[in-house]
């Protein structure tokens, strides 16, 4: 799996990052737009999310063909990039000093990914 990711770093990375950015936008962009009602938000987010099909699904196709039934790994990779975006955004907004547990958290997070991909 790691060999596959390294050999296809540009294409896989591009698909993952674009997919995660779209996921991030449709999940969080509306939280500060209180003037829109919930139905409008749902409709707009759904429309934006359709772009996910054209970015993320080709990657899924390739992974499923090469690594049968390992969709958990590739989906977890997508959500990992999504979560890193949330961490960066949160750090940018809050600008607070992290506690010890908040430093241990990302270490465990990365260790989990290493074990999953190894």
């Amino acid at each position: 799996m790691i060999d596959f990711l390294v050999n296809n770093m540009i294409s896989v990375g591009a698909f993952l990052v674009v997919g995660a950015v779209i996921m991030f936008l449709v999940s969080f962009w509306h939280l500060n737009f209180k003037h829109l009602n919930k139905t409008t938000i749902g409709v707009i987010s759904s429309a934006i999310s359709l772009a996910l099909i054209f970015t993320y699904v080709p990657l899924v196709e390739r992974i499923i063909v090469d690594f049968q039934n390992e969709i958990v790994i590739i989906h977890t990779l997508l959500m990992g990039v999504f979560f890193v975006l949330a961490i960066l955004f949160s750090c940018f907004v809050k600008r607070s000093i992290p506690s010890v547990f908040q430093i241990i958290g990302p270490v465990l997070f990365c260790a989990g990914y290493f074990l999953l991909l190894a």
Partner: protein
Amino acid sequence: MILSLIVAFVLLLTLWPYFAYLNVIVFQKNTSSIEPKMKGRPNRRTVGRRNDDVTKAILAIFSGYILICIGFYVIPDYERILQGEMDVILKMIAIALGVFLISPVCRSANAYIELCHIAVIHVVVSISAAIAISGFFYGFSISINQIGAVGLIALGAMLTFSRHNDFIDKGKAT
């Protein structure tokens, strides 16, 4: 397959202790307290309704991710997109419905929790949904190493945003 479904279920359940630790979900109901700005009115919103709203948000996000995972993985034939086959339309409908379910509840949950906590819900719930869908449709049996890895990822995500939510403690008295 059974093990995958059990792991997915247990992974989903870990969110309740996490939010109980953050004082978002309070199992001890104290209906005798009064709303600070509305004298005489019982403090239902900050005790009872908060639990319900957050629980509803978690379950709705889980349902949405089930639909998204079905769209992503159960109808996987990208080659037909250019040919306009039906599976693409089904895929689009499943993903659009899933996001339509997720987006409003994220904003509802944002009344009690912050963006980073919603991100933790997304990560844990989506991995749980992917494991469940993978096990249910493909008969995927998760290995012990993968259980440990997924557990570490979920624990790491929770620890990263484990600080108590000041907004709730200050703004909405219990």
